[in-house]
């Protein structure tokens, strides 16, 4: 009997917490009183402190998975070594870099004088890697357009024509070939039919998200809150 109750509590308590916080969070936006305002502010701070406490999960999870890769000499274990070494190395460098260096600001907790290595990590690795990986998109867009924008019916024709017109209107070469009226056409597409379509979608999303919120808060949809039912 007691076991049954405990296993129930494992589910009902989290569902209850989610329900209470959800309803309170919603109403604190509509109602103003001194206590609710103060509680909402503090509840948000509470959440951010509690959420920040979870950040070391990343460290544990990566150490666990890649550590096992190295230990069992799985395929590509050299790269796991690289990830592990770089992770702990840059953590230490990041913690130790506090003063500004060559115009860059750092957010270290301690003053270990590791700013120059931190500068290298940011300027030579993280910034260019992030921009370059993002810029791969320019190439993927070209190949996606080549494959996807084929006229197979009226739907794909609309997609193609609106895409191509906006595309041409964007680049200087479009106005160069077709004259400035193309620019007006592009602006019209963006500000009229595009606006209507996106507005329709956005209203749908609002309705859908309210429904989803209710399903989660009222416990009809339990998977997100329980993260696995057992």
């Amino acid at each position, binding site marked *: 009997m007691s076991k049954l109750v405990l296993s129930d509590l494992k589910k009902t308590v989290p569902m209850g917490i989610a329900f209470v916080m959800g309803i309170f969070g*919603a109403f604190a*936006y*509509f*109602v*103003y*009183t*001194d206590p609710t*305002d*103060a509680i909402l*502010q503090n509840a948000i701070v509470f959440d951010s402190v509690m*959420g920040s406490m*979870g950040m070391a*999960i*990343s460290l544990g*999870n*990566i150490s*666990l*998975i890649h550590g*096992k890769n190295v230990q069992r000499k799985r395929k*590509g274990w050299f790269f796991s070594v690289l990830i592990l070494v770089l992770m702990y190395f840059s953590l230490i460098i990041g913690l130790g870099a506090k003063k500004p260096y060559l115009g860059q600001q750092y957010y270290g907790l301690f003053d270990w004088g590791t700013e120059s290595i931190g500068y290298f990590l940011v300027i030579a690795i*993280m910034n260019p*890697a*992030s*921009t370059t*990986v*993002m810029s*791969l*998109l320019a190439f*993927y*867009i070209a190949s*996606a*357009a080549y*494959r*996807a*924008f084929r006229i197979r019916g009226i739907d794909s024709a609309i*997609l193609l024509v609106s895409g191509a017109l906006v595309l041409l209107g964007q680049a200087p070469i479009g106005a160069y070939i077709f004259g400035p009226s193309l620019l007006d056409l592009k602006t019209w597409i963006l500000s009229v039919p595009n606006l209507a379509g*996106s507005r329709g*979608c956005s*209203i*749908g*999303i609002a*309705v*859908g*998200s*309210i*429904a*989803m*919120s*209710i*399903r*989660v808060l*009222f416990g*009809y*949809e339990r*998977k*997100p809150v329980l*993260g*696995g*039912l*057992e």
Partner: protein
Amino acid sequence: MSSVLIDILVSQRPRAWGLWPGRIGSLVLLFVLGFFVILYLRLARKRKIFIRKLPGLDAVDEAIGRATEMGQPVTFVPGIGAIGSLDTMCGLVFLSEVAKRCAELDTRLIVLNRNVLVQPATAGIVRDAFRAAGKTEKFSEDMVRYIAPDQFAFAAGALGTFKREKPAANLMFGAFWAESLELAEVGNDVGAIQIAGSSSMAQVPFFVAACDYCLIGEELYAGAAYIGRDPILTGSIAGQDWGKVLAAVLIALGVITAWLLPGNKWLSNLLLI
């Protein structure tokens, strides 16, 4: 929050307590929309409510089946949003169904995570699905991977994973930003069947272009209710429909007023009380 800011908030209030002016219309509307959803959650217990087929949802099963036949893994990305975002929650719901199918069919599943706090939730769901299928020993920590907190470090890792593991099915449901097309294009390049869903409207065009099926905007939320084939949850989709009917009626009313009585703003004023 500094005390000055609280003073400002206090100074904006007409009285010591009450309803925020300008938000009453929203509150009423929230009640109405919520009422429809709860009404249909109740109605669905008594009778079956018809919901039309969503293209793409049946394809999820097919895609997993194909991966099983080919002996290649299934990859799942629950978006890169935070745990509190509704899109991520939809992703988790989809994941639980996908994991269930994969556990039944003994297909290898790889979940790729960007957010630290989503990682444990996905791990729990996958572990749970394998336990429910009686295959606890088949679950390994390696199935649910945490890649990196940086958006494009995650993208770099995910692209590499796609190329190396060569998944036969790639499922992406959740909140996505600029990396959407990269994931979809590389997934297409390795020959995976791709099904995606997102309410990030800026990214949907890319999913439509590069994936086999795509759930657009609200379809993601409806899909999350539909995928488990639970009649009660499925029924609540009809409640959503009433919300849209309400929106359509409001638009019609407002436009008619604007034509007949130019300058008369009673409806928008009513909504913004």
